[in-house]
């Protein structure tokens, strides 16, 4: 996974704050993309992938908390670190309720902000690994013929080859043939390995 680019979005209307965060995160090998407004970010955010964003609440038009609401509505996989005003507990509470990953009070403690970003990125990474597996699974499932698909579904239900043959009204030999094809196409050594793959996709 080290090959994966570590990237964080910084949404803050203060250029100095954005610049300082970019510099700080670069020391941890994290790239940043800076946005001065919520709208600017919303238009170019990669909604389908997991991502991490440091979001200031005080923004010119659309506020940080409003953007947060939109983000979580669109995708459960974004990790948002909310920056609130000092002592602004109500906003912090709202942010956490909406589903923010964490919040920091501004002016923040740079050390803990960095730790928080690392944590958020780790989560995003896990999310995207999971994503990749799911994509592969979908891809493989698509290569099965119609009959192989029926066999695959029954295999996942835990049926033995004889049962499958009886249910699909085919000979046991034919059923065994399809079963072998399914395992080959999924690159699975056994039925239990196939089940694991299916289960991993479903959680």
């Amino acid at each position, binding site marked *: 996974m080290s090959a994966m680019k570590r990237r964080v979005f910084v949404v803050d209307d203060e250029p100095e704050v954005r610049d*300082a*965060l970019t*510099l*700080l995160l670069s*020391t941890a090998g994290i790239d940043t993309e800076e946005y001065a407004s919520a709208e600017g970010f919303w238009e170019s955010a990669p909604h389908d992938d997991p991502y991490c964003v440091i979001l200031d609440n005080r923004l010119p038009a659309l506020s940080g908390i409003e953007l947060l609401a939109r983000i979580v509505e669109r995708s459960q996989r974004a990790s948002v670190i909310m920056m609130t005003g000092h002592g602004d507990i109500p906003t912090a509470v709202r942010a956490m309720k909406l589903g923010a990953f964490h919040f920091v009070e501004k002016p923040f403690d740079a050390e803990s902000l960095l730790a928080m970003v690392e944590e958020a990125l780790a989560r995003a990474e896990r999310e995207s690994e999971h994503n990749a597996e799911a994509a592969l699974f979908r891809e493989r499932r698509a290569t099965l013929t119609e009959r192989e698909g029926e066999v695959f579904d029954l295999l996942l239900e835990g049926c033995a080859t004889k049962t499958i043959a009886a249910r699909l009204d085919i000979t046991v030999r034919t059923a065994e043939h399809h079963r072998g094809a399914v395992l080959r196409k999924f690159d699975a050594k056994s039925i239990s390995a196939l089940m694991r793959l299916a289960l991993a996709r479903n959680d």
Partner: protein
Amino acid sequence: MTDFAASSSANPFADSARGRNFVRLGLFYLVAYLALNWITAHRSINGSPITLWSPDDALSVMLIMESLAFAPLLWVGQIASDQLFSEVHHPLFATVVCESTLALGYLAMALTLRNRFGLQIRSMRPRDLVAVMAVAPLGAAVIGLFYCSALVATGEAPQGEFLSSYAGFWIGDAAAMVVIIPATCSIFRVLVAEPWRRTEVGHPLFLLSVTLIFVALVVFLSASHVDSRYLFNLCYLPILMVGMKFGYDAGALMLLLAQVLLLIALDYFGVNDKDFASYQVMMFVLSVSGQALGAMVTEWEAATAQLRRQQAELAKVSERATNGAMAAAMSHEISQPLASIAAYVLGARRLLESGQGEEKALGALRKAENEAARARKIVERLRDFVAKGEVARELVDLGELAAVILRLQSDAARERDVSLRLATTEDRPLRARIDRVGVEQALANLALNAIEAVPAHTGHVVIAVTRRGGMAALSVEDNGPGVAAEIAERLFEPFETTKPRGMGLGLPLAREIAAQHSGRLSWRPVAPRGTVFELELPLA
């Protein structure tokens, strides 16, 4: 009756001090009752015990309002006075029957006032006056009916004189009660409960009004070519004047004085009984009108004071809200450079620690430096903003300013039953060129601190204005517990407070205002106990 019986059965001699007071009050009543009867005996009607002015009966009603346990004294007083002072001798049996009717009547009247209308002699409210004005004349009318019937039946009054006895009784009782009861309540309040109001009675306007009534009565009663009963109406003017200026307490005292002056004048000029009764009728109407006006003025003033307090409270709340909004805006402004400084500096350290690049680290530190400069500018802007609030100075008489503060804080002092007074030793006004609002605020803070620091009931606070070379000293002295050693050091630091709801800005603000005027704020303990805070300002 039951609740009353319960309260009177509580042993009045339970503690000796109360017991002594009880006996003293009873004795005072008897002596006063007999003395008043002796004085008024010559105005009795047709040899009956009825007099055209009966302050003694007002005393009886008030005594019973204090405690029902005094009831037997009513019989003692009435029977004794009838036997001692009556011009015609009455058989004891007849006296006992008649006076019992009367005593029971006054008992009923006192209980009505106390239990039905909740009236208390020691703490009468303006609306209680209405109860007195209604119950006293009505009660006198009812009691008179029974009493005069009893007098006629026992032969103490001549048969054919029922109506004239009844009329005489009514005016004598009603006129006396509507003057004596409110006046007694007012004497209690002005002389005992709220002693700082004694000045009302010494006020030139009050003295002038008394003089006017005296002169009017003497002049009118000696004038032979005018019907002086009409001229009596001129007494309305001073009574209304006092009522409007001071409210119903001073008004009631004024009416009592007018009544006494009237009685002396009527006797001095030998006015006959018929005219005497006419004057009493006019006095009765004057009393009712004067006190109604006084009560209205007092109620109105209380309502206005309440309104003022609420307005001040509201102003304080909105000021706090404004301050809060400003603090939030400022904290947002200043948190931006602080946040970027934190990130730049940590970034620089990490770069140096990992040996990734000194150049880049130096760049980050330079940027952090710029951010520190930005933070400094924000603080300077805040200072300029606050300084902009400076207002034009004006020439102010500091004695007058202190008097204003005294008035403004008198409510707070009254609430805690603390004496608050002004001591000025200078005969010439001390003038300084000052920011009036600022200095008023500073002195008000000092005064309020003192009022809240001294013990309730026994505390006293003195505001003084004195000259000290080229400076004027506005000082606030109290007899409170003094400044605790652990607080003394931080006394003038902002946000240090010992008050549960204080902001801790009073003293720092006062010191700031002193500094703005090139003056100073200092404090020192005074012997045997207490503290004096002193605000010195250069004189103009």
